[in-house]
């Protein structure tokens, strides 16, 4: 376990370094520097500015300095607004975290419930209905679902108010974000639950006369949930990238919509910092997922 832990953490660090290197070096390929304004500045002024922000140093050295600053919590300054990026990220992320966290919880709870129902009523009506809707759910891009939800329930029927920062209503955005992971978890739970129900220990429990609900919840479901853990990491990645689109559609002022705005504004320092922030979150989520999986199921040996 210790050896595995070290290996896994090293892999996570390597991937963060690679993402940051890709981000930093590609961003430097873009023609034009941060001080190129429409009004021409004197070369002396630009030189002083470049020295001030260390832009006259070679790019590899700049990269090392950037990473050093990052570790100390200095994420740079936005090119467009001139504000400190970290303050922006942390304030906007609290909104996104609330939305994404609720979506993850909804997806996990409903996914497990629906998956178990489908497994227990195999080839009967509830199972078929669930399979039908999960297949549909995985075939719909999140932005299509989000726009249709907004159009139908918010604008045409008026059941839900439009999101504002004073009166945040998260119901529709949560639905839009959670349908895909929920459908995926439903499928996973169904397959592993069917597998678990056919195991010897379930037959033994039944033979002993353990009540049906106890067999399902204590014996089958507990073991069926192990594969679901593996999906938590990818789900975090999905929700983080999905929230860019969903927040943008529902005009929620979170990190996702801020990222999209920075892309359209070509605000490179913000793009870079947000990418790093999201990448670190995703890599940590994957790391925790793998460790949790290993802890829960000691049979698994990673090579």
């Amino acid at each position, binding site marked *: 376990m210790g050896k595995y832990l070290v290996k896994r953490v090293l892999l996570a660090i390597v991937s963060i370094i690679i993402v940051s290197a890709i981000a930093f070096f590609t961003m430097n390929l873009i023609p034009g520097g941060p001080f190129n304004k429409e009004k021409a500045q004197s070369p002396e002024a630009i030189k002083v500015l470049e020295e001030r922000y260390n832009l006259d140093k070679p790019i590899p050295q700049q990269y090392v300095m950037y990473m050093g600053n990052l570790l100390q919590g200095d994420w740079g300054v936005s090119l467009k607004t001139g504000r400190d990026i970290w303050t922006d990220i942390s304030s906007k992320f609290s909104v996104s975290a609330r939305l994404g966290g609720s979506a993850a919880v909804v997806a996990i709870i409903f996914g497990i419930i629906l998956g178990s129902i489908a497994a227990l009523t195999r080839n009967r009506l509830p199972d078929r209905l669930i399979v039908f809707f999960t297949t549909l759910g995985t*075939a719909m891009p999140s932005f299509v679902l989000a*726009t249709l939800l907004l159009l139908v329930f918010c604008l045409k029927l008026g059941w839900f108010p439009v999101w504002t920062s004073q009166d945040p209503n998260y119901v529709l955005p949560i639905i839009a974000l959670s349908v895909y992971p929920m459908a995926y978890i439903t499928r996973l739970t169904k397959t592993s639950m069917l597998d678990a129900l056919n195991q010897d220990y379930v037959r033994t429990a039944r033979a002993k006369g353990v009540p049906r609900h106890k067999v399902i919840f204590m014996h089958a479901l507990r073991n069926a949930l192990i594969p679901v853990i593996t999906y938590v990491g990818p789900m975090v990645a999905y929700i983080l990238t999905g929230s860019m689109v969903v927040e943008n559609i529902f005009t929620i002022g979170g990190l996702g919509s801020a990222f999209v705005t920075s892309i359209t504004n070509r605000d*490179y320092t913000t793009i870079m910092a947000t990418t790093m922030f999201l990448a670190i979150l995703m890599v940590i989520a994957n790391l925790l997922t793998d460790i949790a999986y290993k802890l829960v199921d000691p049979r698994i040996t990673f090579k």
Partner: protein
Amino acid sequence: MQSDNTVYRRRQLLSSQIDLSKFNDKNFEKATEDEKRQQDVMGESTTFLKDGLRRLRKNPLAMGSICVLLLIVAIIIVAPHICPYSYSQIITVNGVRDKRATNLGPMEFSKLEMDYMEETGEKLFPHLLGTDSLGRDYFIRVIYGTRVSLSVGIVAAIMVLIIGLIYGSISGYFGGMVDMIMMRIVDVIYSLPDMLIIILLSVVLKETLQPAIAGTALAKLGTNMISIFIVFALLYWVGMARLIRGQILSIKNNEYVLAAKAIGTKDGRILRKHILPNCLSVIIITTALQVPSAIFTESYLSFLGLGVSAPLTSLGSLANDARGAMQSYPIRLVVPAIVICLIVLALNLLGDGLRDAFDSKLN
């Protein structure tokens, strides 16, 4: 020695029990053709592919999906030849730009067009889905959007297939140190957040590639499309490579591979003739499921404004453009959305059907 003797003796006893007097000429007559045929093994011999296709044909969902996909492909091939408009053309009547032909409803004509039809008695081709805010025929834009989205999916899947196949088979077949190093590289790439890198590269390549490809055929495709392909070529093959490596590891220890090695067959030939045909099921299924995921990625990027360059369009960018006026013209949002869902759904169901039909472990 003793046991041998007893067996011998028992045999003698048995043969002596056969009553030879019962045999006559009739027993030694040649069998007729009919009787011979009774000895034939029933059922034709099938190949792996035939067997799989037979099972696939019995799956109504998969066959339905194939029909839907064929229908969509037929429409996007034929429609531009029938429909006189083009995806970038603003409607003109008699060589004059028709300024009022914007935002028409389905099957509507503008005033200028109706006047023209009355004057000349000619019938103009109807705008099946109306026109967009610039006065372009929306039906033909959906057709071209579908063309772009589908071809992105297919090209990306083929790229993933080729790179993953070569990488995975080298790693799996040679094993040892080569395998170790190659798989560590795969591990690292696998742990990168792919969507973020796609966005990052799209942003950067949009700026840097533009001058490099200006004037070439690639310029029409747009830098974003190229960056999507680059990212697929860089990142998405790892899943395929892992799968193929796993398959090859389990196949290469079979006796027939050993026999081929023993008679001095070259490595490349063993891979091509003996190992890869046995991985075919995994390859087919994974490639089929790669297409919808590429279409998803493309539509997502189009939505972020990182998709194909105007005036070319894709289903994702059509849906995105329609968002601004979705309350007044919901049809412009709904149509591309339905087409995306239909394509992805059909491809997913087909992929599932292929898995059921070709995965020998499930049968």
